[in-house]
């Protein structure tokens, strides 16, 4: 079932476009989001993190490779590819190898349902949001496999912490997203964008349309930080406590896969946050009288630009927090989840339901 038939005709038509039996259209539709993700995750996520942290800490950051060090990450990836692939002799080899793969796959499968514009979406599932929340939970299996398979005490600590944390934080995160689903009346990712786009730009976004929406918005943002193991909730890999947490024993490309998965899911949660509460690819600019800003800035290409901009903004906020705040302790983290976020998520859930019924 598709919630937006007109958009899908567009993308179906593009998908059906072939040159001499070569499915060029399909490749464009399927590949553009993935190419973007790869580019982003490989270079600009890591590069941005390093540059932002450098600016916050009064230093320059990478400056040597390319202008302003813009190719630094590529050089790093090349270096990691050349590294020896070490598997500890006492490790459980199967789990050790499969761990990063599961994590990588779990992180990037969620991109299948992210709409990068009215036309660019891997699969507009009618349960897209549910799928995105569910598939990311696969990462837990990867973390546990690598933590256990490493046969390292620090890695085991990291893995167990991480599983407790991610599983716990999924509850407030999911409830907060359910509030969004109630407002949209659907779980389809494309539908979220459609109901939030309109001539008045940002006035159609749930965050500005519904006075309660800021509560699930903040709850989901905090919970997503914890789900991504980002500071101040980065206790599974707390470098000063657990050396490197669950990836202590990893080197080379396996290590890079953890990194890519982390940056991938950073973008994923940022995109989900902007899709559910901030209109995704819908343009925030309103039509003011004769000045049709909204109409001018809507369309497939603009949509991709908007969602990427919104995603980048939340990634920036994540980095900003990371480089400002110290780390919470395990029990404080659990306290925050079960005694603060979850009750407030339920309150938000009830209030949103009341609002949707009576307003």
């Amino acid at each position, binding site marked *: 079932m598709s919630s937006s038939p007109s958009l899908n005709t567009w993308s179906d038509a593009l998908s059906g476009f072939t040159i001499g039996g070569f499915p060029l259209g399909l490749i464009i539709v399927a590949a553009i989001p993935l190419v973007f993700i790869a580019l982003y995750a490989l270079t600009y996520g890591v590069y941005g993190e390093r540059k932002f*942290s450098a600016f*916050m*800490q*009064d*230093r320059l950051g990478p400056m040597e490779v390319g202008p302003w060090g813009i190719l630094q990450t590529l050089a790093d990836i090349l270096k990691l590819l050349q590294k020896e692939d070490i598997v500890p002799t006492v490790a459980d080899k199967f789990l050790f190898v499969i761990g990063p793969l599961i994590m990588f796959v779990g992180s990037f499968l969620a991109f299948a349902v992210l709409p990068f514009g009215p036309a660019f979406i891997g699969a507009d599932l009618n349960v897209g949001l549910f799928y995105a929340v569910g598939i990311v939970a696969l990462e837990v299996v990867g973390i546990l496999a690598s933590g256990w398979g490493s046969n390292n*005490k620090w890695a085991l*600590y990291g893995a167990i912490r991480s599983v407790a944390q991610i599983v716990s934080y999924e509850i407030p995160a999911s409830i907060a997203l359910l509030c969004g689903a109630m407002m949209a009346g659907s779980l389809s990712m494309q539908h979220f964008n459609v109901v939030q786009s309109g001539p008045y730009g940002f006035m159609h976004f749930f965050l500005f349309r519904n006075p309660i929406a800021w509560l699930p918005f903040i709850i989901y943002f905090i919970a997503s930080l914890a789900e991504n193991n980002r*500071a*101040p909730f*980065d*206790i599974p890999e*707390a*470098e*000063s*406590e*657990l*050396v490197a947490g669950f990836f202590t024993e990893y080197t080379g490309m396996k290590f890079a896969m953890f990194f890519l998965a982390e940056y991938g899911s950073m973008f994923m949660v940022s995109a989900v946050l902007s899709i559910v509460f901030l209109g995704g690819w819908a343009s925030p600019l309103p039509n003011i009288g004769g000045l049709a800003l909204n109409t001018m800035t809507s369309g497939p290409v603009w949509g991709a630009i908007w969602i990427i901009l919104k995603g980048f903004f939340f990634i920036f906020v994540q980095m900003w927090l990371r*480089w*400002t*705040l*110290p*780390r*919470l*302790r*395990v*029990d*404080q983290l659990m306290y925050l989840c079960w005694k603060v976020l979850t009750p407030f998520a339920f309150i938000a859930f009830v209030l949103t339901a009341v609002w949707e019924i009576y307003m």
Partner: protein
Amino acid sequence: MQELGKAELNSTRIIRQDDNRVIIEKDLDTEYMVLSMGPQHPSTHGVLRLECITDGEVVVEAEPYLGYLHRCFEKYCEKIDYPAIVPYTDRMDYLAGMNTELAYCITVEKLLDIEIPRRVEFIRVITAELNRIASHLVAIGTYGIDLGAFTPFLFCFRDREIILNLLEWISGARMLYNYVWIGGLSYDVPADFKKRVDEFVSYFKPKVVELRELLTENEIFVKRTKGIGIMPAEVAINYGWSGPMLRGSGVKWDLRRNDPYSIYPELEFDIPVPDGKFSDVGDSLSRHLVRALEIDESLKIIEQCLDKMPEVAGFDPRAVIPKRIRPKAGEVYGRAENPRGEVGFYIVSDGKSTKPLRCKARSSCFVNLSAMKDLSKGQLIPDLVAIIGSIDIVLGEVDR
């Protein structure tokens, strides 16, 4: 339901239920895990190794293992002349070389009983206090890293860099100065010294406030440190604690006041002691707080010294340095307040040799660290990291 018996091992319980059936309840088997923390762990501040016995995340017992940086300081001292020991003292507490040099030099001067020119005393105090600030900046910055805050660390190091440049300018080295000599200094300070130190003080004052707002008053930071690793004052005294550690427990003890040396009696400064409002007295936060407040006091001391420092034309800092140091037979203990506590040297001279018969160094970090076993009982691993960070050890001084 009635409990018939209980075995300690595996907490087995034999229970008679209401319908007279006897069942044996057994908890899940759990075992303690031995966790070796360090010497290559990121938050053991060097090469400290802690052997932790853990029950899940709870540390049952943690015992520090030392000696990875042992360099036979005391034995070397018996083989080299008195002035040649000065560079070795730098390598003890490498974050506060000036202070350790000062402690060693005042000890030998006590043994020789020589009078030091006033200008030399002022320069010694200024450099020692500058180094104290630098050392506390490292302590505070790395403490931030231990708790996951990376940015304060780089802010601290940015400001420390200025101090190190100043000290490099006057002594020629960034960390291992060999600047304070027995009976004087290696060189007089450069011509613009006063101006540049003044510039640093006025630059640094707002940065202290910035650091306080960023780290000390941060909600998460307070949550992580308040009430963690509480050390009561009596126990701290019994352990022989000194410096910010002892003052963190609420004891107003500072050798600059209690056993004054150099020109400290002439200077006005407070000894910060936590009052229990912002922190629980004796916890990790108190110890951090004392260090943070001591930076302000050191700045005060530097300002006063710059005002009072006499300008002597054609001043020779080596004027009263004895040509040949051969103290009369006897023994002496001299001590000074280092950033990490009391550093003392116990020197025995046989009266014939130019080398000490025995030179025992009392290390503040070593004594402070000795309470680790007590402090770590029943703490979580993240709290253990917070406690080690608050002790602020320099392994060079612990192992010597």
